[in-house]
């Protein structure tokens, strides 16, 4: 027994980061919803049909891929008329990257896709 602190290695899953990103993005003013893309929709259908297979499904409209100390995040956002789409995308990128850095220590590159602008929102 040397008394030295054993090393600790924490791994954060893609799904966990995606969930943090989705939660923070939905709190940005002007973000009305996140929208599952074609891939997530198809995987959701397949998951409902075949069962989750022991893996928890990522949140709709958010995906993350962790590599070493960085993470690529992709968010698909629904907003409403009256929001400047460019400014909203930048606000989401800033907020989500800061949240992920604070929560996990990972450096995030956040890709935002605005898929829909609701005209009657």
């Amino acid at each position, binding site marked *: 027994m040397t008394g030295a602190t054993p090393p600790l290695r924490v791994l954060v899953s893609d799904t966990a980061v995606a969930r943090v990103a989705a939660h923070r993005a939905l709190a940005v003013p002007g973000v009305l919803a996140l929208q599952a893309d074609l891939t997530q929709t198809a995987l959701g259908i397949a998951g409902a049909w075949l069962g989750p*297979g022991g893996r928890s499904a990522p949140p709709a409209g958010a995906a993350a891929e962790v590599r070493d100390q960085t993470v690529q995040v992709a968010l698909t956002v629904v907003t409403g008329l009256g929001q*400047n*789409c460019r400014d909203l*995308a930048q606000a989401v*990128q800033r907020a989500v990257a800061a949240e992920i850095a604070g929560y996990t220590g990972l450096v995030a590159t956040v890709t935002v896709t605005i898929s*829909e602008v609701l005209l009657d929102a």
Partner: protein
Amino acid sequence: MAVTGPASGPAAGPDGPIAPLGCGRDAALVWDRTEAGLPPDEHERDCPHCSATFAEADRLHRLVHRMAAEPVEPPPSVLERAMGAVRTEFRQRDLLELASPHGPARLSRPAAAAVLRHAVDRMAGMRARSCRIEQAAGPGPDGQPAAADVMITVTARFGVELASVTARVRQMVLAAGEQALGVPVRRVDIDVVDVFEDGQP
């Protein structure tokens, strides 16, 4: 199917006739009974050859059914690769690039067109029919996404001065592009495809 006695002759397999069991009964008939869910008959219960064959067939039958009942999970690499290709194709064609220093930012082209059509529809004397937005791929000379070209078709109320109202449409599209979308508009083409009268749907 009822089997009560020894088979009349050996069954034919792919490699020739199958030798009967030690008791003379055709093993295939025992397997058929097992697969059909029938219980062993009196002979099979007492015959060591038949009971061993029956037990073996029953084990295999249960194993196959158990495996068939298990949920099938497609290989994730295959599914995700295929869907990724579909997604990439979809996005390249249908997305506008938005300026951002924080990473890639994009806007659905149909959603942007709907916003511009909505802006024109709110103008007196004008209704939007269709809207197409083109944006050159890649960044411009300033490193920002290229400005967009808008092609919009409209119908005008009968009697309005087209030169004046189309000038207002142009200004509306430029303003909506910058203020609502955050996409600078370089050029606006307006095609007046029809006229309508008040009260006409």
